[in-house]
């Protein structure tokens, strides 16, 4: 029997003052599984991903991610959990233009005291940069990288802390179909050992995943998080 990367039991969540409600009675995702989260806009895809990542706190229920019962953690512990266990890939990559590629790659270490930027971390960063073909471009700023290189840098940043879960929030949202397939292929290939939750509206990409989950069945109203590209929690 494979290990469970994500286990959800009787999870209930709602935004204050909003009729939206996400209720997940039972959901298991196995370690290393590549899962596409689908569903109509506002159905709760991003909300579920943020719950898994410890950004949002459920009202009730039990949520276990990478062996940690996230639903029982306080704010600080959830942030530490997120730093060490979760890697994020964003729709528009969200690279910091004023930092060179190297600093973008090491950003999780720079902004988070829970992560230690030691020689092992640097070696790992160098190895990842090499594996995505950016080893000789780490001194360049993102504006001097091609679209593909930016995309690979964003994926490398998500993987640099060796996360057990990779959350990709519509990483292909603005891309043409061929490029979108390439990005998903790249993401899945680079995050080989990690569990991937990728939010997507593009059904043509679903064959690349192990399975897809339609989140619409868990929610009752459109989620404010799914209507906003960058929800503040």
């Amino acid at each position, binding site marked *: 029997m494979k290990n469970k990367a994500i286990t959800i039991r009787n999870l209930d969540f709602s935004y204050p003052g909003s009729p939206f409600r996400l209720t997940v009675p039972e959901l298991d995702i196995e370690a290393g599984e590549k899962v596409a989260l689908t569903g109509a806009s506002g159905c709760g895809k991003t909300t579920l991903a943020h719950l898994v990542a410890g*950004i949002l706190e459920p009202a009730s229920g039990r949520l276990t991610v990478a062996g940690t019962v996230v639903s029982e953690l306080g704010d600080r512990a959830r942030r530490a959990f*997120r*730093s060490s266990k979760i890697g994020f890939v964003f729709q528009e990559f*969200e690279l910091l233009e004023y930092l060179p590629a190297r600093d973008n790659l090491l*950003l*999780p270490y720079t*902004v*988070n005291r*829970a992560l230690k930027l030691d020689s092992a971390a640097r070696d790992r960063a160098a190895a990842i940069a090499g594996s995505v073909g950016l080893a000789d471009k780490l001194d360049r700023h993102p504006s001097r990288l091609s679209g593909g290189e930016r995309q690979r840098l964003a994926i490398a940043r998500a993987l640099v802390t060796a996360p057990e879960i990779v959350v990709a929030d519509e990483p292909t949202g603005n891309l043409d179909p061929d490029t979108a397939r390439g990005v998903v292929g790249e993401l899945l290939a680079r995050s080989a050992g990690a569990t991937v939750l990728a939010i997507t509206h593009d059904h043509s990409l679903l064959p690349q995943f192990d399975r897809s989950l339609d989140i619409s069945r868990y929610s009752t109203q459109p989620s404010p998080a799914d209507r906003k590209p960058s929800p*503040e929690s």
Partner: protein
Amino acid sequence: MKSLLLLLALALTAFLPVAAATLVHHFDDELSRRASATPLVAGGKGDRFDLVLKSLYFTGGAPEPITMADFDELADTGRALAIPLHLEFSAGGAPLVATTPDYYRFRKLEPARGTLPLLAGDVALGGSAARRLGLGVGDTLPSDQVNLYDLSATYPLRMRVVGVLAEAGTPDDEAAFASLETAWVIAGFGHGHDKLGADSPAADVLGRGDGRVTASAALEQFIEITAENIGDFHFHGDRAALPVNALIAVPNSPKDRTLLKGRYSTAPDLQMLVPGEVVGELLGIVFKIKRLFDATFGLVALAAALFLALVVLLSLRLRKRERETLFLIGCSRGTVAWMQVAEILILAAGALLVAAAATSVLLWQAPNFTRSLLR
């Protein structure tokens, strides 16, 4: 680049009021010190600011001329030491102050090198002027041509630099000093040439008669007063009619000061001024303008603060996704906020550093700058 522009704009906003205050302070100090050190100034009737500024600070040009008869009259009262000033000319761009040795004693000017200019044709340079001109004792300095296109004008006089005065931190440092006779020679009231006699070339003689020989314009005049030709220099006309531009009066007592002021208050062609009062009046105007500037700077600072707030707000909006990214990858919201506050603080600190550096340069150069304003 954007941050640099913002930093410079902030630095300028902080620097301008400081610069204005510093310059006004130095201007006040520079003017007041000299004015309070000069008890009375007499000169031709006219603009009192003009007379005081030109005779105390050598601000360019000369006050309306009076005559040596006026000097004699003041000296003859016995109520004050009278010091004449002739200010018509310049040499090497420095105002040529022609005066008597009393001036040096009164202003406590001592030669750092060489001697004071005691003979016609001698010149002593203020310390700054000597440095600027690169001249020292033994060099020569021609007086500046007054009117390049006036063919009948006298030639510049080549003067010997006999001394360099110790710097006093006053307008005297920027000036060149000579005797009254030197100035009158430059003005054409005196000149030197070979003696005319029976054996003089006919071209040099305009006419002869009554035992007098009248020289023609062809007679070559000396352009330098030397030990050899100083005896051939002479003045035509009455000494009492020779011009000066101002008189410094150093009264013997407060009573003499009051009496002199009273005496000259009714003089038809002369005025006797207390420089401290005139400068005080001038500074009153300057301070009124400064208050206007202060109010303007206040508004500019307010506008700059509002612009900064706008820039910060726009920046916060533009960088909302960046903050969200930092939060999602593990940075606490407090740390994200602190990072942005730190950016603003670094910007403000950088601006203050630049403003402080500019102020240091200004403080260093302020005396020179205020003096240059007075020239």
